[in-house]
């Protein structure tokens, strides 16, 4: 059989292209995008299977989405988790109670203070440890500052997701100030381990108070700047308003909590409705919006920044003198047999720690009920029917941290 010139590829290797099989089909299976042809009676359309991630800047970590497309419209979205599964629940079973705390930093690494706090409270409730009042105030201060930092970071990332890169720089600029404060009190800028069983690691310094006052004084003008940049921005509105709508009923059935729930018209916040720690002493509001779309999720978080700042200001004013941690704490805590479930309002929603003690120095079981996991489960519902370009906006508006999802 003689080879004609057209049968030779550019690499001078002899190949024959049969008329049925396209060049596309001859690519090795792992490099080609899988597509399945769907024949309708008259019009021939293709259902397109698109793989997003796991390494993709808009998935905020390592999340893989398998998206089915009909033209531009999403018909199905299947999140594939577990790329960041570091078995923290198993690790927690093999550590003493105090040793668990640093691992929780790595779960929700943007809201580490809240993650630490939940575990610390769970152990304290199991073992019956009473925390000094000053420690409670310090916990509230750092947790609310962390909420501000987390929301600022989210605002920046969400802005970048929908094409406003300036917001990214703005958000990081002010987040930096919060990180400086945390560096001052615990020496670390991302994984703090500051809130520990029986109190906090270190007392705050005068410089921390000065930095915090400066930050709180600066924040209102900066919030106005963000509102100028994003809230009134017609392009931003067009990308987010009415996009990815969920109803309150759907949100409750999927176990969605936090700002996503509050954007559906339900003013639910554990800090207000089931006050833990000393939150009932502070005067603050729960922002609520009613449309349940990406824009309202953005509005809720932006308003929460202001409310958190209010709490920090009040807590700094009312900060009592005293110990910042329990004076004498056993090296290895041995709580009595029992279980406890602690729920707190983390930046992303309800963060729960279920802890079971079997009377030894290690817990029998620790379960982290993380907000990102539950909030992400509604993604499949939220994205169906929207254009592929909206996927990134919708995913961004959920505010997931993949360390929090996979644990």
């Amino acid at each position, binding site marked *: 059989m003689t080879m004609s010139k057209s049968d030779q590829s550019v690499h001078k290797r002899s190949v024959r292209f049969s008329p049925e099989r396209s060049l596309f089909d001859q690519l090795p299976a792992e490099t080609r995008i899988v597509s399945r042809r769907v024949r309708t009676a008259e019009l021939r359309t293709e259902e397109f299977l698109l793989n997003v991630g796991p390494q993709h800047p808009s998935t905020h970590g390592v999340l893989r989405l398998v998206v089915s497309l009909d033209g531009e419209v999403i018909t199905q979205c299947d999140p594939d988790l*577990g790329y960041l599964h570091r078995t923290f629940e198993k690790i927690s*079973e093999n550590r003493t109670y105090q040793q668990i705390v640093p691992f929780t930093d790595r779960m929700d690494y943007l809201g580490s203070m809240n993650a630490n706090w939940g575990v610390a409270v769970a152990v304290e409730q199991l073992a019956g440890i009473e925390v000094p009042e000053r420690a409670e105030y310090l916990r509230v201060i750092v947790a609310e500052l962390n909420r501000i930092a987390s929301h600022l970071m989210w605002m920046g990332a969400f802005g970048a997701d929908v094409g406003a890169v300036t917001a990214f720089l703005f958000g990081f600029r002010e987040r930096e100030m919060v990180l400086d404060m945390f560096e001052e009190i615990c020496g670390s800028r991302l994984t703090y381990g500051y809130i520990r069983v029986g109190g906090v690691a270190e007392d705050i310094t005068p410089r921390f108070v000065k930095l915090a006052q400066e930050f709180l004084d600066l924040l209102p003008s900066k919030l106005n700047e963000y509102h100028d940049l994003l809230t009134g921005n017609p392009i931003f509105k067009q990308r987010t308003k009415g996009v990815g709508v969920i109803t309150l009923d759907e949100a409750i059935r999927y176990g969605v909590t936090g700002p996503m729930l509050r954007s559906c018209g339900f003013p639910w916040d554990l800090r207000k409705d089931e006050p833990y720690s000393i939150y009932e002493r502070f005067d603050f509001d729960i922002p609520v919006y009613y449309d349940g779309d990406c824009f309202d999720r953005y509005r809720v978080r932006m308003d929460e920044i202001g409310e958190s700042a209010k709490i920090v200001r009040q807590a700094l004013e009312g900060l009592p003198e005293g110990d910042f941690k329990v004076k004498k704490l056993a090296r290895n805590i041995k709580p009595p047999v029992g279980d406890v*479930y602690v729920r707190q309002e983390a930046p992303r929603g309800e963060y729960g720690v279920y802890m079971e003690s079997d009377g030894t120095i290690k817990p029998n079981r620790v379960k982290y009920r993380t907000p990102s996991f539950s909030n992400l489960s509604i993604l499949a519902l939220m994205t169906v029917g929207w254009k592929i370009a909206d996927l990134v906006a919708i995913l961004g508006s959920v505010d997931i941290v993949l360390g929090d999802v996979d644990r």
Partner: protein
Amino acid sequence: MNFQTVVDSIKVKFSRVDVEHEKVIVVPASDFLPVVDFLRSTLQMNVLDLLTASDHISENQIHMMYGFYSYANKTYLRIKVRLDRKDPAMPTLTSLWEAANWFEREVFDLFGVRFEGHPDLRRILTPPDFEGHGLRKDYERPGFFVKKPDFK
């Protein structure tokens, strides 16, 4: 409505329900779905907040732990179901709450509890070809370290 009134109203209807401590009731597996239905319809517990398991290898049991919450009454109730460690199975709650879908997949993945009637019972955190169930107490990590040869 506090915890005690909730428990009392359950106990009137279901005699085999025990109170473990001030937050948890223990329900036999056969009564589980009727109790949940009762919680949902009569006591307005409209949130499935927690769904997890724990391995009690000494008792040869797996304990399922469910957390239900009512936004209207602000009551939290945890339900514990004791299952046999060999081939544990529970009825699924996916028809009542979509939140149960991923929670149950996670428990299936890490504890090997089958949820009967679950529409999509796949592993969620570990890869599909993973063997065993990671959070069981007798799970052994496969050969990270090479076994020492047996010189005899």
